[in-house]
């Protein structure tokens, strides 16, 4: 394991200045993913800048009924927050569906957005992987790819994003806030990216995962007001009952009036290199009847674009069934 330097910072200007433009330095949040990757040699930073004690650990309401979530809020605190549970229940459920109690106590919101895929080729330095070692190839296309992507993948990479939290954030139009040190005289400068724009398309550059500028520190996430989000759910399917990454997951939110879908949100997990907002399905749903046939048609509208490999085609019926089941449950819940 490479020897590395370690430095703790207590405010944002110090953090972005400490990292600077050094490509060999990394911010350290909870360390629940980065430290594992350092042990296995996937990440080999020369320096760690520990941002865990930055004053970014608050969850605050925004005007109109949204929330601003600090980057160092832990998963446990996020899932327990009363406003999150009331206004965005799927977000709390998604966070609780991930990892274990111990990991959730350490993991942070900022780090969660930046966690890396668990594709078995990516995490094994003895194997080829375009994401880890650009140009070396993607053995998953022909090899082990039961959990590979349905959407937005390329022959260069078929890995999926592992986050549960991100699937709820995608459904609720989250905006990611960051700061860099490239203001006048190296001062911090703020920026923001909608979650849709935060993750880059895979294309032939799977090693470039986010649109964050070099040296940027995620400072928080804003969830805009979304009344429909109060009627939301997260459902995760995995190969055991807990402590496993999803093979398919879904954030669904539904607002029905007089049998007609007024608003709906759908985002899929474990089907793409990013949390996948199912906009085609939403378009098919909104304004139409709230019934099982319409839900199935909406799922099909999204899944029509799915590109399957030899061993991951099961995800198509899985996601279709999940969409129908979750929307049906939400609709029944609303009627009670």
């Amino acid at each position: 394991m490479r020897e590395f330097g370690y430095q703790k910072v207590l405010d944002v200007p110090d953090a972005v200045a400490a990292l600077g433009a050094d490509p060999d330095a990394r911010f350290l949040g909870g360390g629940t993913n980065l430290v594992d990757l350092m042990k296995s040699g996937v990440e080999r930073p020369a320096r760690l800048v520990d941002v865990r004690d930055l004053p970014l650990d608050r969850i605050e309401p925004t005007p109109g009924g949204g929330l601003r979530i600090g980057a160092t809020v832990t998963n446990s605190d996020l899932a327990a927050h009363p406003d999150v549970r009331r206004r965005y229940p799927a977000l709390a459920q998604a966070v609780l569906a991930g990892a274990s109690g111990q990991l959730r106590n350490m993991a942070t919101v900022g780090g969660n957005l930046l966690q890396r895929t668990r594709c078995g080729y990516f995490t094994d330095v003895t194997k080829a992987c375009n994401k880890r070692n650009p140009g070396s190839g993607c053995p998953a296309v022909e090899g082990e790819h039961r959990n590979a992507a349905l959407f937005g993948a390329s022959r260069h990479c078929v890995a999926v994003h592992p986050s549960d939290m991100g699937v709820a954030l995608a459904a609720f139009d989250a905006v990611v806030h960051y700061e860099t040190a490239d203001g006048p005289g190296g001062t911090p400068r703020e920026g923001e990216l909608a979650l849709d724009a935060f993750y880059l398309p895979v294309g032939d550059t799977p090693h470039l995962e986010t649109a964050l500028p070099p040296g940027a520190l995620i400072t928080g996430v804003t969830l805009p007001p979304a009344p429909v989000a109060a009627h939301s759910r997260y459902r995760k399917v995995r190969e055991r009952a807990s402590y496993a990454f999803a093979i398919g997951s879904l954030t669904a939110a539904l607002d029905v009036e007089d049998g007609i879908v007024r608003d709906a949100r759908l985002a899929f997990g474990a089907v793409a290199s990013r949390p996948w907002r199912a906009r085609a399905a939403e378009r098919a749903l909104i304004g139409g009847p709230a019934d099982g046939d319409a839900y199935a048609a909406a799922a099909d509208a999204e899944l029509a674009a799915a590109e399957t490999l030899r061993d991951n085609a099961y995800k198509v019926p899985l996601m279709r069934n999940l969409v129908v089941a979750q929307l049906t449950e939400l609709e029944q819940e609303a009627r009670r």
Partner: protein
Amino acid sequence: MTTAPTAPTPPAATTTGAVGTARSRVEGVEKVTGSARYASELPFTDLAHGWMVLSTVARGRVHAIDTESALAMPGVLTVVHHGNAPRVNTDYVGQLGPADPTLGVFQSDRIPHVGWPVALVVAETSEQAREAAEALDVTYETQPHDTAFHADRPGTYTPENAEVSKGDVEAELAASAVVVDARYTTPEQHHSAMEPHAATARWDAGRLELVDSNQGSMWVADELAKLFSLDLSAVRVRSEHVGGAFGSKGVRPHHVAAVMAATELQRPVRVALTRRQVFAITGYRSPTAQRVRLGAEPDGRLRAFEHVAQCSTSTVREFIENSALYGRVLYEADAHRTVNTVTRLDIPTPTFLRAPGEAPGSFAVESALDELAERLGIDPIALRVRNEPDVGPVSGLPFAGRNLLACYEEGARRFGWAGRDPRPRTRREGRWLLGTGVAACAFPSGVAPSTASVTAEADGTYTVRITAADVGTGARTALTQIAADELGTTPERVRVRIADSDFGPAWVSGGSMGTRSWGWAVIAASRELRERVALLTDIPAEGVTARVNTADLVASLAQKERYSYGAQFAEAAVDVTTGEVRVRRLLGVFDAGRIVNPLTTRSQLVGGMTWGISMALHEEAVRDQETGGHVGADFAGYHFAANADVPVIEADWLGEVDPDDPIGIKGVGEIGIVGTAAAIANAVWHATGVRHRDLPIRPDRVLLAEGDAQAPDRGDRTDA
């Protein structure tokens, strides 16, 4: 003094009733407070750290190793490899058979599989060793490899003595009213002990010492002595606490590499493995492809029983997963044929893994019995009862206690089997389809010679010494209870010292034979001690010691079919829209002999049954054919049951004693995993109407089978 009594040991004059009473582990407080030290935690002065470098290619030769660059890195002391390693002897027979060629570490440039050790980098710190090991530039000449295992592959052969038969199977099948002909597969499975392997080797006053995590310190000492051509008395191996073994903690390449480095550097050298290295070089259970053919009369009586079980092994050693042994003792039939076959591939050598043979074999046989019950319209328990043998179905030998029928009866009563609607897919609860299933299980009950010494100390306490291993089972505690009863004292006055090869030869923790083998020796030595102490007026300061080896006692046992038995019941819930399968209830009722410690026995049985859940639903090592290596060889990629997967599990026993054992023990280490996966798979069929013949029953398999089941031409039957 070693004596070899020939008469059976009489029962103790007085007993304190320790045997049969639940006791927490004698070292329990040390373990839960963290003061118990495991192999990689013990401090040594001047300790150096070795890091294994494993081949990344599946077949070929080492072309070159750039040791110079590695030696220039901070802290690096040496790089041991085939070009500079001392020669070792691999032409010997050890306690468990001929030498494993895999122990010929760094003896040639040949690479027979991914993960073959090519070098050991030793440095002042573990981190430095790892950094240099991972930077070590090894170039290979690669040759085409073949790692793909599947049924009836060309090159599959039947090893010597791997086929047993009676009668004419084909004729009986032809004459049968109903025939089931089904194929089953199980994947490559790994031991996944909580504590990764670690060994520290050092030379101390002319003796080679190893502080290790193993399941048989004498086993490891004996093999190291033979490998390095040392007198056995010049080797000492200790293994005080072991965080799980399950068959993987015998002699392994890291032992050999550590000894080589300690010899070269004349310093203590520790080699601890990462989880990935544990997956790569400590063995595993072979995948299997099995075919079962059953022919029956309309009343369920079996005319033909055939089980052909194929496994794979490496090109360097023939290790057979003996899945087809299972049926030889369980079911009567007019004609019987059981065969193990094997395919050699460019893969690491598999090894013993908890219930080797019986675990995969019982999945196939107990699933096929369920399919036959379905075809015949007979209750699955009634079918098994109808084919219960009076003597060994193939051997004709008498049984040394077989109470399987009582296991069915008691299990059925407690599980609520009576009144079960046999039709599949009839129970639903919300999104879950529910079903129940049953399976029998059996595992050999054996005993092997061991040496124990027992000392009566002057202060009125006793010290037992035996090279037993407590791999987490509670063996140390069980032996304390056994000794206390035989010595007529309380467990508090008995000190049991184990896992030190200086205590003499003893059986390993394996084959569900540990407590029985060691317990017998402890009883025999305790009895001898009592007789000698009875002649004394007081105990001298140095104490009085009796030492007994049970070789003759064990050899005098009559030949019988000696087994533990059980009945496993499962209730499963299946969401066919997502493929999720959850086990709701498990009940196992076992005929496992006298139970020494109900507390740790229950843990053993429940642990085994939990393994059965993992085998049924989760465990599967995936090999990438392109590289011949694993993909996802860590606990994020290789799944076993988490707490949330483990529902209400009940394990209980009949408590019948084995009349031929001085304590009445049969063995409980492995029986818990036998049959469990079949009971769960049978419950999944009952829930869904779909047979899952390939393990694990993953969500994608359930989903795809559901799609097939809805198609007009159902694809879930392969019956003849």
